[in-house]
Protein backbone atom coordinates (compact mmCIF):
# COMPACT_ATOMS: atom_id res chain seq x y z
CA UNK A 1 0.00 0.00 0.00
CA UNK A 2 1.05 3.61 -0.47
CA UNK A 3 3.11 5.45 2.04
CA UNK A 4 3.58 9.02 0.84
CA UNK A 5 5.34 11.78 2.61
CA UNK A 6 3.08 14.79 2.38
CA UNK A 7 4.83 17.77 3.89
CA UNK A 8 3.15 20.54 1.97
CA UNK A 9 0.24 21.23 -0.31
CA UNK A 10 2.45 20.85 -3.37
CA UNK A 11 3.40 17.30 -2.38
CA UNK A 12 -0.29 16.60 -2.47
CA UNK A 13 -0.98 18.28 -5.81
CA UNK A 14 1.91 16.48 -7.48
CA UNK A 15 0.97 13.09 -6.07
CA UNK A 16 -0.10 10.79 -8.88
CA UNK A 17 -2.35 8.69 -6.66
CA UNK A 18 -4.07 11.79 -5.31
CA UNK A 19 -4.56 13.12 -8.84
CA UNK A 20 -6.04 9.85 -9.93
CA UNK A 21 -8.52 9.95 -7.09
CA UNK A 22 -9.62 13.50 -7.88
CA UNK A 23 -9.73 13.17 -11.65
CA UNK A 24 -11.07 9.69 -12.20
CA UNK A 25 -12.70 9.05 -8.84
CA UNK A 26 -10.60 5.94 -8.46
CA UNK A 27 -12.10 3.88 -5.62
CA UNK A 28 -8.90 2.20 -4.49
CA UNK A 29 -7.01 5.49 -4.26
CA UNK A 30 -10.10 7.07 -2.68
CA UNK A 31 -10.07 4.53 0.13
CA UNK A 32 -6.45 5.35 0.83
CA UNK A 33 -6.96 9.11 0.87
CA UNK A 34 -10.11 8.95 3.02
CA UNK A 35 -8.10 7.08 5.60
CA UNK A 36 -5.24 9.55 5.22
CA UNK A 37 -7.60 12.47 5.83
CA UNK A 38 -9.03 10.76 8.90
CA UNK A 39 -5.48 10.34 10.22
CA UNK A 40 -4.46 13.90 9.31
CA UNK A 41 -7.56 16.04 9.90
CA UNK A 42 -5.39 19.17 10.23
CA UNK A 43 -4.37 18.77 6.58
CA UNK A 44 -7.91 18.80 5.28
CA UNK A 45 -7.52 22.33 3.94
CA UNK A 46 -4.61 21.19 1.82
CA UNK A 47 -6.77 18.45 0.41
CA UNK A 48 -9.50 20.91 -0.55
CA UNK A 49 -7.09 23.39 -2.11
CA UNK A 50 -5.10 20.68 -3.91
CA UNK A 51 -8.33 19.26 -5.29
CA UNK A 52 -9.24 22.63 -6.75
CA UNK A 53 -5.78 23.16 -8.20
CA UNK A 54 -5.88 19.80 -9.95
CA UNK A 55 -9.35 20.44 -11.30
CA UNK A 56 -8.35 23.86 -12.59
CA UNK A 57 -5.28 22.42 -14.31
CA UNK A 58 -7.26 19.56 -15.81
CA UNK A 59 -10.04 21.84 -17.07
CA UNK A 60 -10.67 21.71 -20.81
CA UNK A 61 -8.70 18.49 -21.19
CA UNK A 62 -10.38 16.35 -23.77
CA UNK A 63 -9.86 12.72 -24.59
CA UNK A 64 -10.05 12.35 -28.36
CA UNK A 65 -12.14 9.36 -29.43
CA UNK A 66 -9.91 6.34 -30.19
CA UNK A 67 -10.89 6.27 -33.87
CA UNK A 68 -9.77 9.88 -34.30
CA UNK A 69 -6.37 9.05 -32.82
CA UNK A 70 -6.18 5.93 -35.01
CA UNK A 71 -6.99 8.01 -38.10
CA UNK A 72 -4.29 10.57 -37.23
CA UNK A 73 -1.76 7.77 -36.67
CA UNK A 74 -2.74 6.09 -39.96
CA UNK A 75 -2.29 9.39 -41.81
CA UNK A 76 1.26 9.61 -40.44
CA UNK A 77 2.03 6.01 -41.51
CA UNK A 78 0.68 6.69 -45.02
CA UNK A 79 2.82 9.79 -45.43
CA UNK A 80 5.88 7.86 -44.32
CA UNK A 81 5.15 5.11 -46.84
CA UNK A 82 4.62 7.64 -49.64
CA UNK A 83 7.85 9.48 -48.93
CA UNK A 84 9.88 6.29 -48.58
CA UNK A 85 8.82 5.01 -52.00
CA UNK A 86 9.39 8.41 -53.62
CA UNK A 87 12.81 9.10 -52.24
CA UNK A 88 14.35 5.68 -52.64
CA UNK A 89 15.14 5.11 -56.30
CA UNK A 90 16.61 1.67 -55.56
CA UNK A 91 13.38 0.40 -54.06
CA UNK A 92 12.15 -2.48 -56.14
CA UNK A 93 8.40 -2.85 -55.91
CA UNK A 94 8.34 -6.36 -57.33
CA UNK A 95 10.57 -8.01 -54.78
CA UNK A 96 9.88 -5.45 -52.05
CA UNK A 97 13.62 -5.37 -51.59
CA UNK A 98 15.76 -2.31 -51.66
CA UNK A 99 19.08 -2.56 -53.37
CA UNK A 100 21.39 -0.93 -50.89
CA UNK A 101 23.96 0.57 -53.21
CA UNK A 102 21.48 2.25 -55.53
CA UNK A 103 19.76 4.05 -52.72
CA UNK A 104 22.97 5.68 -51.53
CA UNK A 105 24.18 9.11 -52.68
CA UNK A 106 27.00 9.08 -55.23
CA UNK A 107 29.84 10.05 -52.91
CA UNK A 108 29.04 7.09 -50.65
CA UNK A 109 29.17 4.74 -53.58
CA UNK A 110 32.77 5.80 -54.20
CA UNK A 111 33.44 5.27 -50.53
CA UNK A 112 32.15 1.73 -50.75
CA UNK A 113 34.07 1.03 -53.94
CA UNK A 114 37.22 2.30 -52.24
CA UNK A 115 36.76 0.18 -49.16
CA UNK A 116 36.02 -2.89 -51.25
CA UNK A 117 39.28 -2.30 -53.08
CA UNK A 118 41.08 -1.97 -49.78
CA UNK A 119 39.53 -5.20 -48.60
CA UNK A 120 40.64 -7.00 -51.74
CA UNK A 121 44.21 -5.73 -51.40
CA UNK A 122 44.32 -6.59 -47.75
CA UNK A 123 42.99 -10.02 -48.56
CA UNK A 124 45.51 -10.79 -51.27
CA UNK A 125 48.61 -9.32 -49.66
CA UNK A 126 48.44 -10.70 -46.18
CA UNK A 127 48.19 -14.43 -46.37
CA UNK A 128 49.49 -16.14 -43.32
CA UNK A 129 49.21 -19.81 -42.66
CA UNK A 130 47.91 -19.35 -39.12
CA UNK A 131 45.24 -17.01 -40.36
CA UNK A 132 44.12 -19.41 -43.01
CA UNK A 133 43.92 -22.16 -40.45
CA UNK A 134 41.81 -20.05 -38.08
CA UNK A 135 39.56 -18.86 -40.85
CA UNK A 136 39.00 -22.48 -41.75
CA UNK A 137 38.10 -23.21 -38.15
CA UNK A 138 35.43 -20.51 -38.30
CA UNK A 139 34.20 -21.67 -41.67
CA UNK A 140 33.76 -25.19 -40.45
CA UNK A 141 31.71 -24.03 -37.44
CA UNK A 142 29.65 -21.82 -39.73
CA UNK A 143 29.15 -24.68 -42.13
CA UNK A 144 27.84 -26.87 -39.35
CA UNK A 145 25.52 -24.08 -38.12
CA UNK A 146 24.10 -23.51 -41.57
CA UNK A 147 23.01 -27.12 -41.64
CA UNK A 148 21.87 -27.53 -38.03
CA UNK A 149 20.65 -24.06 -37.08
CA UNK A 150 17.70 -21.85 -37.96
CA UNK A 151 18.36 -19.04 -40.42
CA UNK A 152 16.65 -15.65 -40.20
CA UNK A 153 17.04 -13.11 -42.96
CA UNK A 154 15.69 -9.58 -43.22
CA UNK A 155 14.97 -8.49 -46.77
CA UNK A 156 12.31 -5.96 -45.80
CA UNK A 157 13.09 -2.24 -46.00
CA UNK A 158 12.98 -1.68 -42.21
CA UNK A 159 14.43 -3.43 -39.17
CA UNK A 160 12.80 -6.72 -38.28
CA UNK A 161 12.32 -8.05 -34.77
CA UNK A 162 13.11 -11.70 -34.24
CA UNK A 163 12.12 -13.70 -31.17
CA UNK A 164 14.60 -16.48 -30.62
CA UNK A 165 13.48 -19.75 -28.98
CA UNK A 166 15.46 -18.96 -25.79
CA UNK A 167 13.45 -15.74 -25.24
CA UNK A 168 16.10 -13.36 -26.57
CA UNK A 169 15.04 -10.60 -28.96
CA UNK A 170 17.00 -9.41 -31.93
CA UNK A 171 16.31 -6.39 -34.13
CA UNK A 172 17.84 -7.42 -37.41
CA UNK A 173 18.66 -4.60 -39.81
CA UNK A 174 17.81 -4.54 -43.50
CA UNK A 175 19.95 -6.86 -45.57
CA UNK A 176 21.31 -8.69 -42.52
CA UNK A 177 20.96 -12.32 -41.62
CA UNK A 178 21.66 -14.61 -38.70
CA UNK A 179 21.76 -18.27 -37.85
CA UNK A 180 20.70 -19.49 -34.41
CA UNK A 181 21.91 -22.77 -33.03
CA UNK A 182 21.89 -24.39 -29.60
CA UNK A 183 24.97 -26.50 -29.03
CA UNK A 184 23.80 -29.03 -26.48
CA UNK A 185 27.18 -30.70 -26.25
CA UNK A 186 28.86 -27.51 -24.99
CA UNK A 187 25.74 -25.86 -23.49
CA UNK A 188 25.96 -22.74 -25.61
CA UNK A 189 23.58 -20.56 -27.57
CA UNK A 190 25.38 -19.66 -30.78
CA UNK A 191 24.54 -16.92 -33.26
CA UNK A 192 26.25 -16.29 -36.60
CA UNK A 193 25.63 -12.76 -37.76
CA UNK A 194 26.19 -11.06 -41.10
CA UNK A 195 25.33 -7.36 -41.03
CA UNK A 196 23.92 -5.36 -38.14
CA UNK A 197 21.68 -6.24 -35.22
CA UNK A 198 20.67 -5.12 -31.75
CA UNK A 199 20.49 -7.95 -29.22
CA UNK A 200 18.48 -8.15 -26.03
CA UNK A 201 19.63 -11.41 -24.54
CA UNK A 202 17.52 -13.54 -22.20
CA UNK A 203 19.50 -14.33 -19.08
CA UNK A 204 20.64 -17.93 -18.83
CA UNK A 205 24.00 -18.23 -17.09
CA UNK A 206 24.23 -21.95 -17.81
CA UNK A 207 24.03 -21.32 -21.57
CA UNK A 208 26.37 -18.48 -22.60
CA UNK A 209 25.16 -16.54 -25.63
CA UNK A 210 27.86 -16.24 -28.26
CA UNK A 211 27.65 -14.08 -31.37
CA UNK A 212 30.10 -14.85 -34.17
CA UNK A 213 30.90 -12.57 -37.04
CA UNK A 214 33.74 -13.22 -39.44
CA UNK A 215 36.10 -11.01 -37.40
CA UNK A 216 34.84 -10.66 -33.86
CA UNK A 217 33.13 -12.87 -31.30
CA UNK A 218 31.00 -11.52 -28.48
CA UNK A 219 30.23 -13.65 -25.45
CA UNK A 220 27.46 -12.66 -23.02
CA UNK A 221 25.35 -13.96 -20.20
CA UNK A 222 22.32 -11.67 -20.37
CA UNK A 223 22.48 -8.10 -21.60
CA UNK A 224 21.69 -5.81 -24.51
CA UNK A 225 24.13 -4.60 -27.14
CA UNK A 226 24.54 -3.78 -30.82
CA UNK A 227 26.84 -5.48 -33.31
CA UNK A 228 27.70 -4.05 -36.68
CA UNK A 229 29.70 -6.28 -38.99
CA UNK A 230 28.62 -5.42 -42.51
CA UNK A 231 30.54 -7.21 -45.27
CA UNK A 232 32.61 -4.72 -47.23
CA UNK A 233 33.00 -2.24 -44.38
CA UNK A 234 36.44 -1.79 -42.87
CA UNK A 235 35.40 -1.55 -39.23
CA UNK A 236 33.18 -3.85 -37.22
CA UNK A 237 31.83 -2.59 -33.91
CA UNK A 238 30.07 -3.67 -30.74
CA UNK A 239 28.29 -1.21 -28.47
CA UNK A 240 27.03 -2.19 -25.03
CA UNK A 241 23.75 -0.85 -23.62
CA UNK A 242 23.38 -2.86 -20.43
CA UNK A 243 25.32 -5.61 -18.73
CA UNK A 244 28.76 -6.87 -19.67
CA UNK A 245 30.06 -8.71 -22.69
CA UNK A 246 33.43 -10.18 -23.62
CA UNK A 247 34.85 -9.57 -27.08
CA UNK A 248 37.38 -11.71 -28.94
CA UNK A 249 38.89 -11.84 -32.39
CA UNK A 250 37.12 -14.63 -34.22
CA UNK A 251 40.44 -16.13 -35.25
CA UNK A 252 41.56 -16.29 -31.65
CA UNK A 253 38.22 -17.57 -30.30
CA UNK A 254 37.95 -20.45 -32.73
CA UNK A 255 41.55 -21.57 -32.38
CA UNK A 256 42.55 -24.29 -29.96
CA UNK A 257 44.60 -21.94 -27.77
CA UNK A 258 43.13 -19.98 -24.88
CA UNK A 259 41.23 -17.06 -26.38
CA UNK A 260 42.48 -13.56 -25.75
CA UNK A 261 39.64 -11.15 -25.18
CA UNK A 262 38.51 -8.22 -23.13
CA UNK A 263 35.41 -7.12 -21.30
CA UNK A 264 33.07 -4.33 -22.42
CA UNK A 265 30.81 -2.55 -19.96
CA UNK A 266 27.91 -0.16 -20.71
CA UNK A 267 28.81 2.96 -22.68
CA UNK A 268 31.92 1.27 -24.03
CA UNK A 269 32.36 0.04 -27.54
CA UNK A 270 34.84 -2.20 -29.27
CA UNK A 271 35.97 -1.55 -32.81
CA UNK A 272 37.75 -4.08 -34.95
CA UNK A 273 39.88 -2.59 -37.66
CA UNK A 274 39.73 -5.27 -40.32
CA UNK A 275 42.78 -4.00 -42.17
CA UNK A 276 45.03 -3.81 -39.13
CA UNK A 277 43.38 -6.80 -37.46
CA UNK A 278 43.26 -4.87 -34.22
CA UNK A 279 40.54 -4.50 -31.63
CA UNK A 280 40.40 -1.24 -29.73
CA UNK A 281 38.22 -0.19 -26.86
CA UNK A 282 36.60 3.26 -26.74
CA UNK A 283 33.71 5.11 -25.13
CA UNK A 284 30.48 5.70 -27.03
CA UNK A 285 29.99 9.25 -28.28
CA UNK A 286 27.20 10.22 -25.91
CA UNK A 287 27.18 8.01 -22.84
CA UNK A 288 23.77 7.42 -21.26
CA UNK A 289 23.25 7.15 -17.52
CA UNK A 290 23.09 3.47 -16.66
CA UNK A 291 21.68 4.00 -13.20
CA UNK A 292 17.89 4.35 -12.98
CA UNK A 293 17.98 7.41 -10.72
CA UNK A 294 21.39 9.02 -11.14
CA UNK A 295 20.70 11.90 -8.72
CA UNK A 296 20.66 15.59 -9.57
CA UNK A 297 24.41 16.29 -9.65
CA UNK A 298 24.27 19.48 -7.71
CA UNK A 299 27.19 19.88 -5.35
CA UNK A 300 28.04 22.42 -2.74
CA UNK A 301 31.61 22.32 -1.57
CA UNK A 302 31.69 18.61 -2.30
CA UNK A 303 35.03 16.75 -2.46
CA UNK A 304 35.84 16.25 -6.14
CA UNK A 305 36.63 12.62 -5.39
CA UNK A 306 33.01 12.12 -4.41
CA UNK A 307 31.83 13.81 -7.64
CA UNK A 308 34.00 11.56 -9.80
CA UNK A 309 32.70 8.53 -7.93
CA UNK A 310 29.09 9.59 -8.49
CA UNK A 311 29.77 10.15 -12.20
CA UNK A 312 31.42 6.75 -12.43
CA UNK A 313 28.50 5.19 -10.66
CA UNK A 314 25.81 6.90 -12.76
CA UNK A 315 27.34 6.16 -16.16
CA UNK A 316 29.16 2.93 -15.42
CA UNK A 317 32.34 4.47 -16.88
CA UNK A 318 35.42 4.01 -14.77
CA UNK A 319 37.31 7.15 -13.83
CA UNK A 320 40.89 6.82 -12.66
CA UNK A 321 42.59 9.53 -10.59
CA UNK A 322 45.16 10.01 -7.90
CA UNK A 323 43.23 10.15 -4.68
CA UNK A 324 45.93 11.88 -2.68
CA UNK A 325 46.43 14.71 -5.19
CA UNK A 326 42.71 15.41 -5.44
CA UNK A 327 41.93 15.05 -1.73
CA UNK A 328 42.19 18.83 -1.22
CA UNK A 329 39.84 19.75 -4.10
CA UNK A 330 36.19 20.58 -3.58
CA UNK A 331 33.61 21.82 -6.06
CA UNK A 332 30.36 23.76 -5.98
CA UNK A 333 28.38 23.26 -9.18
CA UNK A 334 25.04 22.21 -10.64
CA UNK A 335 25.78 19.68 -13.37
CA UNK A 336 22.40 18.19 -14.08
CA UNK A 337 21.59 19.62 -17.51
CA UNK A 338 24.84 18.62 -19.16
CA UNK A 339 25.71 15.30 -20.73
CA UNK A 340 28.49 13.10 -19.41
CA UNK A 341 31.31 14.96 -21.14
CA UNK A 342 29.73 18.32 -20.25
CA UNK A 343 29.78 17.34 -16.57
CA UNK A 344 33.30 16.00 -16.78
CA UNK A 345 34.60 19.11 -18.56
CA UNK A 346 33.02 21.45 -16.03
CA UNK A 347 34.48 19.60 -13.05
CA UNK A 348 37.91 19.40 -14.67
CA UNK A 349 37.85 23.09 -15.50
CA UNK A 350 37.01 24.01 -11.91
CA UNK A 351 39.87 22.01 -10.43
CA UNK A 352 42.19 22.87 -13.33
CA UNK A 353 42.59 19.27 -14.43
CA UNK A 354 42.65 17.51 -17.81
CA UNK A 355 41.54 14.06 -18.84
CA UNK A 356 42.37 11.45 -21.41
CA UNK A 357 40.32 8.48 -22.56
CA UNK A 358 42.50 5.39 -22.49
CA UNK A 359 41.01 2.00 -23.30
CA UNK A 360 37.48 3.09 -22.46
CA UNK A 361 38.54 4.55 -19.13
CA UNK A 362 38.74 8.21 -18.14
CA UNK A 363 42.14 9.10 -16.73
CA UNK A 364 42.34 12.39 -14.85
CA UNK A 365 45.57 14.36 -14.55
CA UNK A 366 45.62 17.17 -12.02
CA UNK A 367 48.05 19.11 -9.89
CA UNK A 368 45.73 19.24 -6.89
CA UNK A 369 44.29 22.26 -5.12
CA UNK A 370 45.63 24.55 -2.44
CA UNK A 371 43.80 24.05 0.79
Amino acid at each position, binding site marked *: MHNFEINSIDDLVANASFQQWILSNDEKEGAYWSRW*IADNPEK*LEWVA*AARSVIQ*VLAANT*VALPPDEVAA*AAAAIQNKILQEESQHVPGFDLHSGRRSRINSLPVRFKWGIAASLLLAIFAGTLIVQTAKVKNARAYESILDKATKAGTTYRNNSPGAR*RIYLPDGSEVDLQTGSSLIYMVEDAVARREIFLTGEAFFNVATDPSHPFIVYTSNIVTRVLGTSFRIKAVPGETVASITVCTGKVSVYKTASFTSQDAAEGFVLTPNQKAEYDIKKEQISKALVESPQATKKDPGDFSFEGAPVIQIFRELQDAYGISIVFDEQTLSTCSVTAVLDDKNFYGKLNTVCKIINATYEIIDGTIVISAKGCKS
Partner: protein
Amino acid sequence: MNQTFSGYSDEEIWSVFLTGDSAALDCIVKKHYNLLYNYGRKFTQDTDLVKDCIQELFLALWKNRAGTGNTACVKYYLMKSLRRRLARELSKTGNITPESLEFLQLSMQLPQSPEVQKIQEERHAELSARIVQAISALSKRQQEIIYLRFYLNANAAEIGLIMNLSRQSVYNLLQLAISRLREISDTVFKHDIGYLLLLLALFH
Protein backbone atom coordinates in the same frame (compact mmCIF):
# COMPACT_ATOMS: atom_id res chain seq x y z
CA MET B 1 -2.40 -0.02 -28.96
CA ASN B 2 0.03 -2.03 -30.98
CA GLN B 3 0.16 -5.53 -29.53
CA THR B 4 3.79 -6.29 -30.31
CA PHE B 5 4.99 -3.53 -28.00
CA SER B 6 2.78 -4.14 -24.99
CA GLY B 7 4.86 -4.28 -21.85
CA TYR B 8 7.59 -2.13 -23.37
CA SER B 9 8.58 1.20 -21.85
CA ASP B 10 8.38 4.32 -24.01
CA GLU B 11 12.16 4.46 -24.11
CA GLU B 12 12.46 0.86 -25.31
CA ILE B 13 9.92 1.45 -28.07
CA TRP B 14 11.83 4.59 -28.96
CA SER B 15 15.08 2.69 -29.44
CA VAL B 16 13.26 0.25 -31.72
CA PHE B 17 11.85 3.19 -33.68
CA LEU B 18 15.39 4.55 -34.11
CA THR B 19 16.34 1.37 -35.93
CA GLY B 20 13.81 2.32 -38.64
CA ASP B 21 10.79 0.42 -37.43
CA SER B 22 7.67 2.34 -38.44
CA ALA B 23 5.43 0.12 -36.32
CA ALA B 24 7.30 1.37 -33.26
CA LEU B 25 6.68 4.95 -34.36
CA ASP B 26 3.00 4.15 -34.84
CA CYS B 27 2.89 2.86 -31.29
CA ILE B 28 4.53 6.07 -29.98
CA VAL B 29 2.05 8.20 -31.95
CA LYS B 30 -0.99 6.41 -30.56
CA LYS B 31 0.32 6.41 -27.03
CA HIS B 32 1.05 10.13 -26.84
CA TYR B 33 -1.42 11.71 -29.25
CA ASN B 34 -3.91 12.78 -26.61
CA LEU B 35 -1.26 14.21 -24.33
CA LEU B 36 0.32 16.22 -27.15
CA TYR B 37 -3.05 17.39 -28.42
CA ASN B 38 -4.07 18.68 -25.01
CA TYR B 39 -0.69 20.28 -24.36
CA GLY B 40 -0.78 22.01 -27.76
CA ARG B 41 -4.22 23.38 -27.05
CA LYS B 42 -2.78 25.23 -24.07
CA PHE B 43 -1.09 27.58 -26.55
CA THR B 44 -3.67 28.07 -29.25
CA GLN B 45 -7.36 27.56 -29.84
CA ASP B 46 -6.70 26.50 -33.41
CA THR B 47 -7.11 22.73 -33.00
CA ASP B 48 -6.32 22.02 -36.66
CA LEU B 49 -3.00 23.77 -36.30
CA VAL B 50 -2.21 21.60 -33.27
CA LYS B 51 -3.05 18.42 -35.19
CA ASP B 52 -0.95 19.55 -38.17
CA CYS B 53 2.00 20.30 -35.93
CA ILE B 54 1.75 16.86 -34.30
CA GLN B 55 1.75 15.19 -37.72
CA GLU B 56 4.70 17.26 -38.94
CA LEU B 57 6.54 16.54 -35.72
CA PHE B 58 6.32 12.77 -36.19
CA LEU B 59 7.16 12.94 -39.91
CA ALA B 60 10.25 15.00 -39.11
CA LEU B 61 11.20 12.53 -36.38
CA TRP B 62 10.98 9.68 -38.86
CA LYS B 63 13.01 11.50 -41.46
CA ASN B 64 15.72 12.54 -39.00
CA ARG B 65 15.85 9.37 -36.95
CA ALA B 66 19.43 8.67 -38.03
CA GLY B 67 20.55 11.84 -36.27
CA THR B 68 18.36 11.24 -33.24
CA GLY B 69 19.61 9.53 -30.13
CA ASN B 70 17.98 7.71 -27.30
CA THR B 71 16.14 9.93 -24.88
CA ALA B 72 15.67 9.61 -21.17
CA CYS B 73 12.02 10.51 -21.40
CA VAL B 74 10.11 10.20 -24.66
CA LYS B 75 7.02 11.99 -23.36
CA TYR B 76 8.84 15.21 -22.47
CA TYR B 77 11.02 15.09 -25.56
CA LEU B 78 7.88 15.05 -27.72
CA MET B 79 6.31 17.88 -25.72
CA LYS B 80 9.43 19.98 -26.15
CA SER B 81 9.43 19.37 -29.90
CA LEU B 82 5.74 20.20 -30.22
CA ARG B 83 6.18 23.37 -28.21
CA ARG B 84 9.01 24.52 -30.48
CA ARG B 85 7.06 23.69 -33.62
CA LEU B 86 3.95 25.50 -32.41
CA ALA B 87 6.01 28.55 -31.52
CA ARG B 88 7.44 28.59 -35.03
CA GLU B 89 4.03 28.19 -36.68
CA LEU B 90 2.32 30.75 -34.47
CA SER B 91 5.07 33.27 -35.10
CA LYS B 92 4.43 32.92 -38.86
CA THR B 93 0.93 34.30 -38.46
CA GLY B 94 2.53 37.35 -36.97
CA ASN B 95 1.12 37.60 -33.49
CA ILE B 96 4.14 36.46 -31.52
CA THR B 97 7.85 35.79 -31.75
CA PRO B 98 9.04 32.21 -31.30
CA GLU B 99 10.46 33.11 -27.89
CA SER B 100 7.25 34.59 -26.56
CA LEU B 101 5.03 31.56 -26.95
CA GLU B 102 2.33 32.08 -24.37
CA PHE B 103 0.43 29.66 -22.31
CA LEU B 104 -3.27 30.42 -22.64
CA GLN B 105 -4.97 31.57 -19.49
CA LEU B 106 -6.01 28.65 -17.34
CA SER B 107 -9.74 28.80 -16.97
CA MET B 108 -12.23 27.38 -14.61
CA GLN B 109 -14.52 24.63 -15.68
CA LEU B 110 -16.03 22.79 -12.80
CA PRO B 111 -16.93 19.18 -13.11
CA GLN B 112 -20.58 18.39 -12.62
CA SER B 113 -21.16 16.29 -9.56
CA PRO B 114 -24.89 16.08 -8.85
CA GLU B 115 -24.46 13.81 -5.87
CA VAL B 116 -22.67 16.53 -3.96
CA GLN B 117 -24.85 18.86 -1.99
CA LYS B 118 -25.53 22.31 -3.34
CA ILE B 119 -23.87 24.18 -0.53
CA GLN B 120 -20.62 22.20 -0.81
CA GLU B 121 -20.66 22.84 -4.52
CA GLU B 122 -20.92 26.56 -3.92
CA ARG B 123 -18.07 26.60 -1.44
CA HIS B 124 -16.01 24.52 -3.79
CA ALA B 125 -16.74 26.91 -6.66
CA GLU B 126 -15.67 29.79 -4.47
CA LEU B 127 -12.41 28.09 -3.61
CA SER B 128 -11.75 27.20 -7.25
CA ALA B 129 -12.45 30.76 -8.28
CA ARG B 130 -9.84 32.01 -5.82
CA ILE B 131 -7.34 29.49 -7.06
CA VAL B 132 -7.97 30.42 -10.68
CA GLN B 133 -7.57 34.04 -9.66
CA ALA B 134 -4.29 33.35 -7.92
CA ILE B 135 -2.94 31.25 -10.77
CA SER B 136 -4.00 33.88 -13.29
CA ALA B 137 -2.01 36.44 -11.38
CA LEU B 138 1.12 34.40 -12.09
CA SER B 139 3.15 35.00 -15.22
CA LYS B 140 2.35 32.83 -18.26
CA ARG B 141 5.64 31.03 -17.76
CA GLN B 142 4.78 30.25 -14.17
CA GLN B 143 1.37 29.00 -15.23
CA GLU B 144 2.96 26.67 -17.72
CA ILE B 145 5.44 25.47 -15.10
CA ILE B 146 2.59 24.77 -12.67
CA TYR B 147 0.77 22.85 -15.37
CA LEU B 148 3.84 20.76 -16.19
CA ARG B 149 4.82 20.20 -12.57
CA PHE B 150 1.48 19.45 -11.04
CA TYR B 151 -0.55 18.07 -13.87
CA LEU B 152 2.04 16.19 -15.90
CA ASN B 153 4.37 15.43 -12.98
CA ALA B 154 7.47 16.70 -14.76
CA ASN B 155 10.42 17.47 -12.47
CA ALA B 156 12.49 20.64 -12.62
CA ALA B 157 15.04 19.20 -15.03
CA GLU B 158 12.31 17.96 -17.36
CA ILE B 159 10.47 21.28 -17.26
CA GLY B 160 13.76 22.98 -18.10
CA LEU B 161 14.12 20.66 -21.11
CA ILE B 162 10.61 21.29 -22.39
CA MET B 163 10.65 25.07 -21.93
CA ASN B 164 14.31 25.55 -22.69
CA LEU B 165 15.04 27.14 -19.32
CA SER B 166 17.87 26.58 -16.89
CA ARG B 167 17.05 24.41 -13.93
CA GLN B 168 17.66 27.32 -11.61
CA SER B 169 15.08 29.54 -13.29
CA VAL B 170 12.56 26.72 -13.22
CA TYR B 171 13.18 26.43 -9.48
CA ASN B 172 12.79 30.13 -8.88
CA LEU B 173 9.57 30.39 -10.88
CA LEU B 174 8.18 27.28 -9.24
CA GLN B 175 9.02 28.42 -5.71
CA LEU B 176 7.17 31.70 -6.26
CA ALA B 177 4.15 29.89 -7.61
CA ILE B 178 4.10 27.43 -4.75
CA SER B 179 4.37 30.05 -2.06
CA ARG B 180 1.36 31.76 -3.63
CA LEU B 181 -0.57 28.50 -3.50
CA ARG B 182 0.30 28.16 0.17
CA GLU B 183 -0.90 31.68 0.88
CA ILE B 184 -4.27 30.89 -0.65
CA SER B 185 -4.75 27.69 1.23
CA ASP B 186 -3.88 29.55 4.44
CA THR B 187 -6.15 32.56 3.97
CA VAL B 188 -9.12 30.73 2.52
CA PHE B 189 -9.40 28.42 5.47
CA LYS B 190 -8.68 30.74 8.35
CA HIS B 191 -11.62 31.06 10.75
CA ASP B 192 -13.74 28.79 8.69
CA ILE B 193 -14.48 25.87 10.96
CA GLY B 194 -17.88 25.32 9.38
CA TYR B 195 -16.34 24.75 6.00
CA LEU B 196 -13.84 22.31 7.38
CA LEU B 197 -16.63 20.24 8.86
CA LEU B 198 -18.41 20.24 5.52
CA LEU B 199 -15.24 19.09 3.83
CA LEU B 200 -14.84 16.31 6.31
CA ALA B 201 -18.28 15.09 5.34
CA LEU B 202 -17.41 15.39 1.68
CA PHE B 203 -14.24 13.36 1.84
CA HIS B 204 -15.55 10.57 4.02
